[in-house]
């Protein structure tokens, strides 16, 4: 069964970048993946990759939140 992989970015992503991410994701998770792209302003920058129940968050919003937690404990 094909798995769905959602790539969410803060703004519209260039096709080159999108394809690069798809290639890398296939290398890591296998070929049976259908990709979909979405935009989400809340991410501020960077992107989030969702595959099944697994999330890989490389957005600026998440990074800033991590820094905030490190500072406030």
């Amino acid at each position: 069964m094909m798995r769905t992989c959602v790539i969410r970015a803060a703004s519209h992503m260039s096709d080159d970048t999108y394809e690069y991410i798809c290639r890398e994701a296939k290398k890591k998770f296998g070929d049976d993946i259908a990709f979909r792209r979405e935009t989400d302003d809340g991410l501020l920058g960077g992107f989030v990759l969702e595959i099944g129940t697994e999330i890989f968050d490389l957005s600026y919003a998440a990074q800033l939140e991590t820094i905030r937690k490190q500072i406030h404990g």
Partner: protein
Amino acid sequence: MELKNISAFLKAQIEAYHVQPIAYHRGIVTRVGDGVVRVEGLPGRLYGELLEFDGGVYGMALDLTENGVGAVLFDTADAVCVGCRVRGTGTVAETPVGDVLLGRVIDPIGRPLDGKPLQADRFLPVERPAPAIIDRRPVDKPMETGILAIDSMIPIGRGQRELIIGDRQTGKTTIALDSILNQKNSDMLCVYCAIGQKASTVAGVIQTLRNAGAMDYTVVVSATASDSPAMQYLAPYAAASVAEAFSAQGKDVLIVYDDLTKHAVAYRTMSLLLLRPPGREAFPGDVFYLHSRLLERSACLSKEKGGGSITALPIVETMAGNISAYIPTNIISITDGQIYLESELFHADVRPAVNTGLSVSRVGRAAQHDAMKAVSGTLRIDLSQYREMAVFTRFGNDLDASTKKMLRRGETLINIFKQDKNHPLSVFDEVVLLLAYNENCLEAVPARNMRGAMQKLIAVIGGACPGERERILQTGKMSDADKAALTAALHEKQEEYTS
């Protein structure tokens, strides 16, 4: 850090910062009902882990299965719906601890409830293991409640767990509150944990504490009846963590759980909704462990561990005086004694309505002040003899002189034990009152004048014997010379305080 180094430090931190992908599993809510949700996905969760739902709602994972997680919500379930996304936080529920909490009112996960911001820098998990056997020492210091009937006959030591049990409206919370108020000039800190109570009752308790200036050394942890069962379930554990942080600093802490019946009911609600098998009275199988692991956290720590202590006063409400119900018997067997309050006594104006026959303290006698030991030796036996005789002679008029004397002494003692709420007595006051009883100085006073006479007695004798007063208050000991001086003063000034 010096000011000039800050920019260098920041630069180094920024240079060393690597963007790491934040990887986690996401779950999907498949069922919502009564504050309990079923989540699909989310492998590898911890028991008791905090889960974050869409919309900033938090819950706690309590049922871990192969396909998903059963969780309870901390907030109202309105924001959570089927299809909602859930993420594990990797941490178990935590509560803020430390001196910043003194005078504050918080909920079990540390959100302030008194409208002021809370800047806490230390957090502890809500569930923590009890101190090990090796880290404990025997209870040997008294925890004065300021209530004469308790300090003299059912003494409580620092590090003891003493249950307060009785029907509704018998003065259970009052005893606990008086104990907190009495710590005003001592070195003890207090934690009051309200579980499943009416918000108006909790507001009343806080007002009483505030009016008496007791909030300066007290923390209130509250989960009221309108909070979710999960919050009510967590409240006493969070309060215990707050107390443990103080006791780890070598301080003595008094913690009141008001009340554990409602805690058990909240846990039953959660367990039934999580589809755990019901047992006796529909409580789940681990309801004993629920309270035993909580109360085991109250202990007297060894010198190596700082020598602090946590004295627990759990409260349990009975139905129609039935102390052999499930939860009361469980907690009676866990604690080191109980103070049993009776409706009949309460309505007969014997307040605090302590039933001395059914009340017991299994450790406190070893921790009682020497001065108190010296004057309270025969009280229990006097009282039980009086009660027996009072029943026996209820319809009889022909009583011999010794029986009449015993009845009169018993009545006097009962009247001495009557005490207004929110008026705890000092050790000296208690010792002098009992000395007056032992010396038969108050027998001539009619019952209706007893309170006034007792107040006068305390003032008169305190004024006449300031040296003795100071020694008893400072050391808790009463030498033979002190006793002789106080006895002489009691006889000498009898006219003054009995008139």
